[in-house]
């Protein structure tokens, strides 16, 4: 097997491992972001919808009336 194919295989292996690890770590997650570059406070995750009051989401600002949620 050529070295290039080995590199392709290893990258795919790392990707599968990383996504598997993400699934394990965020299995009980509330949808909030995990990453933090820097020491500053993190804002509300745009797509966090926990049990509490809904935070401000940057892409839920339609002018029209909200439809009934199917769930």
């Amino acid at each position, binding site marked *: 097997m050529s070295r290039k194919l080995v590199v392709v295989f290893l990258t795919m292996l790392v990707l599968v491992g990383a996504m598997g690890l993400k699934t394990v770590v965020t299995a009980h997650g509330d949808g909030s972001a995990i990453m933090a570059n820097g020491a500053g406070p993190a804002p509300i995750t745009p797509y966090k919808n926990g049990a509490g009051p809904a935070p401000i989401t940057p*892409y839920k600002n339609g002018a029209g009336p909200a439809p009934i949620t199917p769930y």
Partner: protein
Amino acid sequence: MPGLLVNLLWLVGILAEAAVVVCALKKGAFRRYLLLNLYMAGLLFVELGRYRIVSQYGLRSTQFIYFYYYSDAILTIFLYFALCTLYSHVFSEMNAERYVKLGAILLLAGTALFTYAVVMQSTAKLLTHFVIELSQNLYFVGLVLTYVLWGAILKLRETRARLIQLVLSLGVYFSLLAANYAIRNLYPPLSTVFIPLVQIFGVFLPLAWAYAFWRLPEEARLVPARLAVIPR
């Protein structure tokens, strides 16, 4: 505006990030670890920008949310490439730089494709979803890559103290964030303790890197582990 302790930690973090760049410049290591230092310099500017936006618009403002997550994604990509340059340093004697570059590009493209496949179902603000998810996925890819690099350092009996310090601190930083996230989701009542810890972890990485550049000269070597099995 955030509280006094939050601001204090934020200030310490900004100073530590500046210290990394200054120490690297002072010790002549800026060009040797170029992407690592560019990441830190970028982080410093982003942090200053975040502070300005928070002071002007507030912590819950849309401006801050967008600036934070978009800048975070760019920084994570920078950190990913910085990590790849650490691979180049570790494998420098094996002339594997070409393969490291190929692997880095392939892995980034694979992660981006995977992220797009996951978020393409989003009907609104596809780009925002994509940017945040890519940042998260790259974070986990970075975590796995750091552990693989730890393994390679042990296997190859790497002795360069500064390089080891840089890789180990990155591994500890990634691991602390992942463990913190998992614990606070498993035990939600502890969130009040674990969420502020993220800020302290954010200070840890630049402090560890500043120490590596300031206290450990490039020529410093560690004694290899003496646990190897010696056949009689």
